[in-house]
C-alpha cells in the first residue's frame, strides 16, 4: 500500500511541478491526474496494488471534503447577503443545465440511430 501511495503522491508532486513551471491556470492535482492516466494507459494498469490503493482512497472521498466544506462557516455574512441569488443559481441553474444536457445527448443519439433520410 505504501509504495502505491508514494507513486500516486509522486504524480501529485509532478502535477504541481508542471503547473508552477509552466504557470498554468489548471489545478496541479488535475495535471497530476492526467499524467497518472497517461501512465496507466502506457503500463496497462497491471499493478493490482496501485489500483487497489487508489480505489481505496476514492472510496473515502466524502471524508476528504469535510475540512474544506466546514469552511463555509467563515463565509456566513456573504451567504446571508447573497442567499437568494445563491440558492436560485444552485437549484434553478442546476435543474436547467441537467435538463438541457439530457436533451442534447438524447437528440444526438436518436439522430445517430435513425436514418438521415427521415424528415
Amino acid at each position, binding site marked *: 500500500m505504501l509504495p502505491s501511495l508514494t507513486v500516486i503522491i509522486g504524480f501529485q508532486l509532478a502535477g504541481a511541478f508542471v503547473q508552477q513551471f509552466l504557470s498554468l491556470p489548471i489545478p496541479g492535482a488535475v495535471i497530476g491526474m492526467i499524467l497518472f492516466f497517461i501512465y496507466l494507459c502506457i503500463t496497462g494498469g497491471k499493478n493490482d496494488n496501485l489500483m487497489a490503493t487508489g480505489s481505496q*482512497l476514492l472510496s473515502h472521498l466524502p471524508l476528504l471534503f469535510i475540512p474544506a466544506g466546514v469552511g463555509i462557516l467563515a463565509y456566513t455574512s456573504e451567504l446571508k447577503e447573497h442567499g437568494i441569488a445563491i440558492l436560485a443559481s444552485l437549484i434553478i441553474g442546476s435543474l436547467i443545465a441537467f435538463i438541457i444536457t439530457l436533451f442534447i445527448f438524447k437528440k444526438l443519439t436518436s439522430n445517430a440511430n435513425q436514418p438521415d433520410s427521415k424528415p
Partner: protein
Amino acid sequence: MNETTPFDYTELLASPLFCIPLTLVAYLIGTRLYSLSGKNTFLQPVVSGILLVMVAITLLDIPYDHYFRGAEIIHFLLSTATVALAIPLYHNIKYIRENVRPLLITLFMSGIVACFTAVAIAWLLGASQEIMLSLAPKSITTPFAMGVAESIGGYPPLTAGFVIFTGIVVAVSATPIFKWLNINDPIIQGSAMGMVGHGIATARALELNSKTGAFSALSMGLMGVYTSICLPYAVRLFN
C-alpha cells in the same frame, strides 16, 4: 478552583491530535446515518460530516482556521484522491471509445450551460463578482472545483459548499426528471448526472444501474478536466 490554570485545552483542541479524530468520527457517524436511513440522498456522509464538525467546533469555540490547520493532512489527501480519479477513468476507457462523439459534444455544451446558468442567475439577482466566480465551477467535483475557484478568484470553501449542494439537487431530482422526459437509456442518464451533478450524483447513479454509474463516473471526470482547463481561460477573456 485553581488560581493558575493547570492545563490549557485550546492548544490541544486546535492540534491535529484533536482535529483529525474529530473529522474521522464525524465522517463515520455520517456514513452510519446514511446506511441506517436506507441511503437517503439528503443524508450523504459529506453533508452530515460537515454539519457535525461545524457544530462541534462552534460549541468548542475553535476558530475555523485553527481547525483547518489541524485537519490539513485530510485536505492534502483530497489532491491525492484527485490524482487517483485517473483509475475509474482508465477502467471506463472502452465506453469512451464507443460513445466518443455524442459524449464529447454533450460535454462541450453542458459545461458551458452549467457555468452560464449558474453565473447568469446569480448576476440577475445581484450577487457580487466573488460569489459568481465561486458559483461558476459548481458542477465539477470538489477537488477540481476548489482548485478552479482559487485560480479564478472565487472563495474555495464556499465553492465546496456550492458543489455539494449542486450534487444533491441533481441526485434528488434525477429519477423524477427521467420519468417526466421519458429518458430510459442508462448512457444518457448517467452522462447527464455526472456532467451536472459530479460525485454525489454518481453515487446515486450507481444505485440506479451499474452502467448508469460507470457513465456518471466517466462524465464527472471528463467534465472536471474540461471545466478546470477552460474556465480559467474563459474568465481571463471576460476580465
